């Protein structure tokens, strides 16, 4: 008995073994409930994958008539243009929001207000925002731009605000001690400390915005997504795969550019 007690057992984060098993059991039960809830029985999955293989056959080879190819290029340029405008406008709006959402630079009420806005922007998926904006301002790239700008502010202002909270207040105090005005303090004390991160974050967000701008068209907010949805609805799967190839290519190029620029700044 005493010898058995002294056997080493791996510690667990749950503190007690009973809790651990209860937690595992609870999680497993939830998964079973999920599988039952959405009708994921194995037979249906197997049948589905059979149909999936057929679909894969329909996808190959990717093909587009010259007219379709021109449409892909046209709408892809629209997507990239939307992403570019949204990145610039989004960042322009993010800067004041970030300053107001940094605990060390902003009064409490303003801080909470801006934190709330950031949470709202981050919690709502781009497609949800897009569908609301389309209802408000109509179909087309303008809706896409507003959507992606809104999403950019949540992401950018949050990360920038965190950087601002981490800055060295000593150098800010030093600038202030020389008799600088609040604006001068900001320009010479705060800004130089965050510029490198700022550049990296901008390019990173641009890359994400390119990805987003390729899908908001599915709910009518401009860009290549609308072409994709139409192709799907017409069952022209070879055209679909041509569009998908184009999307993957553009996303990869954007990711590459973003990675190179970020490496330079770090």
């Amino acid at each position, binding site marked *: 008995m005493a010898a058995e007690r002294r056997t080493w057992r791996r510690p667990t984060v749950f503190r007690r073994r009973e809790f651990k098993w209860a937690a595992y059991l609870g999680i497993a039960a939830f998964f079973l409930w999920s*599988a039952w809830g959405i009708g994921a029985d194995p037979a249906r999955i197997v049948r*589905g994958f059979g149909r999936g293989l057929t679909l894969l056959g329909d996808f190959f080879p990717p093909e587009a008539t010259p007219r379709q190819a021109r449409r892909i290029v046209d709408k892809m340029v629209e997507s990239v*243009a939307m992403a570019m*405008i949204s990145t610039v406008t989004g960042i322009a709006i993010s800067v004041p929001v970030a300053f107001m959402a940094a605990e060390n630079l902003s009064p409490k009420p303003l801080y909470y207000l801006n934190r709330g806005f950031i949470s709202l922007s981050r919690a709502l*998926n781009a497609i*949800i925002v897009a569908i*609301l904006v389309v209802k408000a301002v109509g179909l087309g790239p303008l809706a896409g731009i507003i959507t992606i700008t809104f999403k950019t502010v949540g992401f950018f202002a949050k990360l920038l605000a965190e950087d601002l909270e981490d800055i060295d207040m000593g150098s800010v105090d030093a600038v202030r001690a020389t008799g600088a005005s609040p604006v001068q303090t900001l320009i010479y004390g705060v800004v130089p400390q965050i510029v490198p991160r700022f550049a990296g974050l901008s390019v990173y967000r641009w890359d994400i915005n390119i*990805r987003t701008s390729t899908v908001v068209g599915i709910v009518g907010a401009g860009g290549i997504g609308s072409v994709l*949805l139409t192709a799907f609805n017409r069952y022209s799967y070879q055209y679909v795969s041509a569009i998908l190839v184009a*999307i993957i290519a553009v996303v990869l190029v954007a990711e590459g550019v973003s990675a190179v620029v970020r490496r330079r700044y770090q």
Partner: protein
Amino acid sequence: MTSRTEAARTWERFDRRRKVGRFLGVLGALVVFVASWRFLDTGITNVETVPREINDLLTRMYPPDVAYVPEIVGPLVETLHIAALGTVGALVLAVPVALLAAENTTPNAATYWLGKLIVTVSRSVNTIIWALIFVVVFGSGPLAGAVAIAFRSIGFLGKLLGEEIEEIDFGQVEAVRAAGASSTQVLIYGILPQVKPALVGLSVYRWDINVRDSTILGFVGAGGIGVQLFRAVNAFAWQSVATILIVILGVVLASEGLSAYARGLTR
């Protein structure tokens, strides 16, 4: 000549080349920005009415329709089911992909590039596009949604888990192998214990992202609360829309908190 040397000794933050590089970078971005604006000109004629339109929408949403809450409990639970099953499915599929995409565990160069290819394709195709595809395969409904979530997550989990595997201590793996373990046993006793905390942390993190993503699947018929939202938006039932948005917001923030807490435990 002396004055020039004097000038050259002034302290500058960046040398000339970097300054020019920065300037050209910013200039290029601005040029593309202006060109983009001009390209989209047809769609951006009524920018000045935008604040009014959005304000109008918000006024119509207020107050949220509380009586509508019972109707969205079912779809909301379905959304959580999709996120949970999608994450599990992704985990099952991502572990072999991660082993392929990690330089130290992949059998050869061809399998390494296969792993990288799967990761790249999975990550470049958005959840909603995967959903479009799987609605064709499985028919509309939450099953298509869960599979779409799983396929989107493979890339994320495969990439990050693969990086984690590349950083393990290979001595331990050799030790297990030297004891005469089969390759399955090497996996279970040599590799898995070293990546387990990362595996749990990444899965929880992805689950949290999947909760957000599964709220939109309904727009293309792949189940979840998005179906309800889509219906309410098309019926111009703005007060119901507000209710759904608040509920989504609550669930997303709750899952984010839970995920952060669970990841804190694994660290």
